[in-house]
């Protein structure tokens, strides 16, 4: 069996598994076995695909035996295989964690346990979006993962989740419509949706129209990737979901958007007409996102804002549009997938141990749970770009690419990136100071917390925020009506996967040498385009 036969497996196996899991809806055990087995197999498949794609070039399967550009091609090249591997590892960890947390079953009376099959469908959608070599099929991948995400986001059906879900679903649908319209327009102009074929045919489209098509497509992706100014939906919706769901969303969904941007930017629209625009978007995404993180008093919301903010780093790399910028962006994607997932899983642990994710209800965790302290501190520093963690390496790579670019805007972006880094650190340190160091508030006596760790009074940060803040808090404060839940001990089944992901994060630093070599090669592939196009259309694209 050659490796190209493996290419469809990361999509079709989870769907097969989802079918089984639905059919076994009444047996939680069977569902668990199916999902764990399927995801483990995908990890293995992705690893093989990555090594094969790296050694022998893109692995292509023409589905149904219909050769591109007639049929749909799945392509595992270095970029997509790398994304696939990282997401599969992360998804497996999240799955195991969720088994430990027990969010997967609601209770004895539920109609059918939808978590497992839906999770598998989500992974199938993500894998499909990474592997697809067909613009319309990427759209299908997006739809699959979005449909699954709608369900996962509203798990449990609390009013907060449904309210957040409404924003999420409608914004996502609108972005999908924009994406779909862009596909229709591109098809109208070129008569094909195969990416490799498009890369040939788009060259014949008049420049102005091509630019308009590019921007239309980019707008759709920018909503998915939560790029400024199309990002505001994200911090409203993600934090309400159960921890593992938020974790997998934060890790994978926006990065699918980033992947789509990288792929289409390089393959379909080479050249850097819009890099100035992207640079501005990157700068504002970084800064406004991180300011949002600084303003939060809830760890989950804070992390959602850092998630958005650091999307800006990747867009920065793409906007530089050189080999080193793309390589840095891809490395950062890998890092960001792991780190955001890790942190959200750890926040799940905090919620379990401390009974809340609100900073003014937490306290003293460093003393009461040293393991949790380590599990939070290391990834928090990693996110803030403290060396020697991969967050730092990615940042350095971006800065090097920026300095090489040497345009004034690149320097402005470098300044923006380090400012973002500092403010991320500030936000993380604030969370650490309050949740882990500050003694737990005595709940009884209307305590006044000296909450101004980080120099600003909490009134400055939260209380005196004015009506606008009340508005932006609106959807979420209602979502947590609970009076701090009782603290529960941590289970190995939850700490284990979280710790594993923390380790994966550190390991990325250890293997940073080979990993950067890989992303360098991938970036060269992306910019050359030929390896991809020739692998998909061996007989030549022909107009």
């Amino acid at each position, binding site marked *: 069996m050659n490796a190209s036969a493996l290419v469809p497996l990361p999509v079709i196996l989870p769907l097969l598994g989802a079918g089984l899991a639905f059919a076994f809806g009444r047996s939680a055990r069977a569902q668990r076995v199916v999902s764990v087995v399927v995801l483990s197999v995908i990890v293995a498949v992705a690893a093989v695909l990555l090594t094969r794609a790296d050694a022998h070039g893109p692995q292509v399967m023409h589905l149904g035996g219909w050769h591109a550009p007639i049929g749909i091609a799945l392509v595992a090249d270095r970029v997509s295989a790398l994304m696939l591997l990282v997401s599969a590892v992360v998804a497996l960890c999240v799955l195991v964690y969720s088994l430990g947390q027990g969010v997967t079953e609601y209770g004895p009376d539920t109609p059918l346990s939808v978590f497992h099959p839906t999770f598998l469908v989500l992974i199938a959608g993500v894998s499909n979006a990474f592997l697809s070599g067909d613009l319309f099929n990427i759209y299908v991948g997006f739809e699959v993962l979005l449909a699954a995400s709608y369900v996962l986001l509203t798990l449990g059906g609390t009013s907060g989740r449904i309210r957040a879900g409404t924003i999420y679903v409608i914004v996502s649908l609108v972005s999908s419509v924009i994406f779909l319209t862009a596909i229709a327009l591109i098809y109208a102009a070129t008569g094909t949706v195969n990416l490799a074929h498009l890369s040939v045919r788009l060259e014949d489209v008049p420049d102005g129209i091509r630019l308009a098509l590019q921007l239309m497509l980019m707008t759709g992706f920018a909503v998915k990737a939560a790029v400024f100014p199309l990002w505001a939906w994200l911090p409203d919706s993600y934090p309400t979901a159960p921890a593992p769901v938020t974790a997998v969303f934060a890790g994978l969904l926006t990065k699918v958007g980033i992947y789509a941007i990288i792929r289409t930017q390089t393959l379909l629209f080479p050249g850097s007409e819009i890099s100035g625009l992207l640079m501005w978007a990157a700068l504002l995404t970084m800064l406004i996102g991180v300011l*949002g993180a600084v303003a939060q008093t809830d760890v989950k919301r804070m992390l959602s804002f850092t998630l958005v903010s650091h999307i800006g780093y990747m867009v920065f790399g793409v906007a530089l549009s050189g080999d080193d910028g793309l390589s840095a962006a891809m490395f950062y994607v890998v890092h960001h997938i792991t780190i955001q997932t890790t942190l959200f899983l750890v926040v799940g642990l905090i919620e379990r141990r401390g009974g809340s994710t609100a900073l003014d209800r937490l306290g003293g965790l460093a003393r009461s749970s040293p393991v949790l302290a380590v599990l939070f501190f290391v990834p928090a520093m990693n996110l803030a770009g*403290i060396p020697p963690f991969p967050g730092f390496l990615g940042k350095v790579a971006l800065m090097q690419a920026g300095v090489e670019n040497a345009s004034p805007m690149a320097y402005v972006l470098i300044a923006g990136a380090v400012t973002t880094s500092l403010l991320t650190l500030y936000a993380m340190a604030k969370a650490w100071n309050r949740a882990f160091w500050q003694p737990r508030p005595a709940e009884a006596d209307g305590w006044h917390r000296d909450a101004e760790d980080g120099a600003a009074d909490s009134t400055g940060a939260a209380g005196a925020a004015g009506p606008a803040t009340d508005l932006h808090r609106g959807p979420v404060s209602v979502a947590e009506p609970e009076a701090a839940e009782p603290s529960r001990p941590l289970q190995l089944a939850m700490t284990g996967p979280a710790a594993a992901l923390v380790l994966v994060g550190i390991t990325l630093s250890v293997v940073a040498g080979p990993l950067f070599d890989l992303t360098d090669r991938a970036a060269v592939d992306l910019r050359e385009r030929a390896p991809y196009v020739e692998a998909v259309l061996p007989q030549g694209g022909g107009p």
Partner: protein
Amino acid sequence: MMAVLIAAHLAAAALAPLLAGRLRSRVFLVLAVVPATAFAWLAARGGTVAGPDARSITQSTAWVDSLGMQLSFRLGTLSWVMALLVTGIGALVLVYSAYYFRPDETGLGRFSGLLTGFAGTMLGLVLADDLLLLYVFWELTTVFSYLLIGHNPDRRANRRAAMQALIVTTFGGLAMLVGVVIVGQAAGTYSISGVLADPPAGTAVSVAVVLLLVGAVSKSALVPFHFWLPAAMAAPTPVSAYLHAAAMVKAGVYVVALFAPALAGVLPWRPLLLTVGVATMLLGAWRALRQHDLKLLLAFGTVSQLGFLVVVLGVGTRSAALAGVAMLVAHALFKAALFLVVGIVDHGAGTRDLRLLSGLRRRMPVAFWAAVLAAASMAGVPPLAGFVAKESIVKAFVDVARTGDGTGIPPVAGWTVLVGLVAGSALTVAYSARFVWGAFATKPGVSEPAGIHSPPVGFAAAPALLALGGLALGFLGSAETPALAPYAEHYPEGVHHASLGLWHGLNLALVLSAVSLAAGAVMYWQRHAVARAQRGLRVGYEAEHGFRRTLRVVDRVAVEVTGATQRGSLPVYLVVIFVVVITVPGTALLMAGVGSVDLYGWDNPAQLAVGGVLVAAAILTARSGRRLKAVLLAGVTGYGMALLFMMHGAPDLALTQVLVETVTLAVFVLVLRSLPPRFSERPLTSTRWGRLGIGALVGALMAGFALVASAARTADPVSETFAERAEAEGRGHNVVNVILVDIRAWDTMGEISVLVVAATGVASLVFLITGRTGRWRPDEAIGSALDSHASSHPDGGRPSWLRAGGTLPPDRRSIVFEVVTRLAFHIIVVFSVYLLFSGHNMPGGGFAAGLVAGLALMMRYLAGGRHELNDAAPVDAGLVLGVGLFVATGTGLVPLAVGGAVLQSAVVDLSVPLLGHVHFTTSLFFDVGVYLVVVGLMLDVLRSLGSGVDRHGDESAENGRDEADEQHAQQERLGETR
């Protein structure tokens, strides 16, 4: 070996928490072995890396080649000196800590681990020969410092001090990182020795130099970042002695010393460092004079001395460099000793406030003499190391002031610096004296603190050793000179031959030293007058307030910006998205200009009519206030589309569209029963025209774009060949079906998984809100309360042909409808199966067929309630959905097993008994999966959304008020979700 030493520290740090559990405070003694070993190894290398024939020891391992980042280490003279200090003082401080902490102190494991880990990273910092690696250790020391300052986090001041140190030094660190990257990219290498050997130049490098210095200045707590260091005294004393006096704060000085030989000539270097350094020296010393807390006194003293060191090591002459390194060593010895003495005093007397301390000289003689020696060294009293170094420094700066000594510093500036240094030294003398007096003197009117106990030998050993070291070094000037010379020799020979020694003859330098000692003595003697002067001169502004204010501004801006951009309002988000669509791609389209667009009205005038109806329906939909009306009007647009498909010759699409529209309408109607009849009235009229405008613009943009894009087409669409290839290769006459189940079956597979997920997701949500399930249950399990109607049925409790009797009250039943439905059901199902099988060649296919079967189920349900539905489909919706998905994907996988491509189809010709010859393509199985999924979807929707039909009926029959209540409650629940 260097990497091994660093790794050993980190490994020991990781083990510390485990060891501490058993050893308690003795864990420090075990951990001290690690830096002590490193010290011994380094000391043994002295002959190689220092002295006349010095050469560096290097070691390098690849890390991230792509970034030019290597694990390379280099032991040169300067780093050797620093490494000796780091490991030597590190070992002593660890030993000291064993006595400083009570054995039952909490957090010993963490503390000892962090302290040892810090020692490792600090060692790494001074040994690193790669700019980025240096930065790695640089930031790590910051993080360790943060955690150590917050060792006792219960106090707010401690937490705040930790945060402040973290943010300030990281701010500088990030600036330095940018500088490092600019230098590294400009030099083409990140190797420090490489950069030093061939320093880059240019404007960018000048900027980089400033950024590097910002890092150094913040780390070494120079003005204007000095405030974090006194605040950091919140840490336990061993930390203050080690991190915040001897080691970490020297990192900035070290970087200055490291790069000065190469970069001192780059423009902003000297003016910046000399100004900042002298200002810091004076300010720190001045403020040290007025502290009452001995630790704070020393902390401001450290700030002052760091400024001093930066001036000396940054000026860039050979004699200053030599003297500066000597001062670096002397400072580490005396300042660490003094801090450790403070710890002993604090321990013994229970306070560090010099106004409360009295009579300690007699009670702690060892600590007292150690303090005297160290303070004398700090004040520059001969014959101690401090004097030797300071004397040489003054000499070097006399040269600079007189001749520039190769630096090009104008005499005015040179003399100013010299005066500043002498004045600073005088202040240093004064606060040194004040320290000894404050800690140990017997003060009239102050009673001895109660319960003073003298320290055990081991406790006092570390400061005593350090203080004696300062004494010994004073006499070792002649040995020190050649050892440190290799570093100074990076600079050209100066006006005088640089050397260290107690006696350089009678010269200006000696006079200035004497002057500073005398002035300091006078200030100590007249300390009350000085204190009065200080009160008079107190400056209102403090840098720390500036920092706090900055953070408050940041917080404030963060809240404002977030409030402005993060509205939590869906309409606002949508407006933003559409505005982006209009402005970004829209502008591009306008700029592209419209080429020649071939417009023709219609193929068939009926299209125009249908189009008009569509537009009118769409507009009316948006305007309608009633939900039902809106749904029906939206349905009109759907059926209109079907008509258009028809006219374009696509019966299959039209059929599917009609079915989808019908099902959608029916489902909507089911849902609408639980919603208020009208859309909520919202006060949105003010923005109405704006929204209308945006909508119109988006519509116009899309229409225009579609025209322009189609006009731009140059090549034939790939679908041109579909019709012919569908027949030739897909073995089907129905192109649409071949596309769906063969050419683009992969898309279909994705979409059916969307259906499955949507169906189950909706069902589970409905369940959570209403308690209705999509699960089929045996009849017995269903509420027996309803069987009152059944009892009126002639057949009693036995299963009957018409089951509505089980759920619907007699007055609401329509027997004719029930009977017709019952009769038609099987016919419709058979028809749907026919559509499924014939779909490959004729209109139909799995999707349409599934919808038809679903409609049949819906009829059964509407006619007879859920018992009828259960009779018709006695299975779980989940099972049907799951099996459908499984069949479709499984069909896709089978060809893979036989070496084909996923979803590849094949023609099967079989001869089956009874049926005869059967001919089909394997994609039929895929279509069966699709069919099952659609049927499952319908079943799920009916069971979850529809189950209320009969239930409401039942309840209204039994108890009208209950129904009203339930509806009310339900509306509330739904209202919440809106």
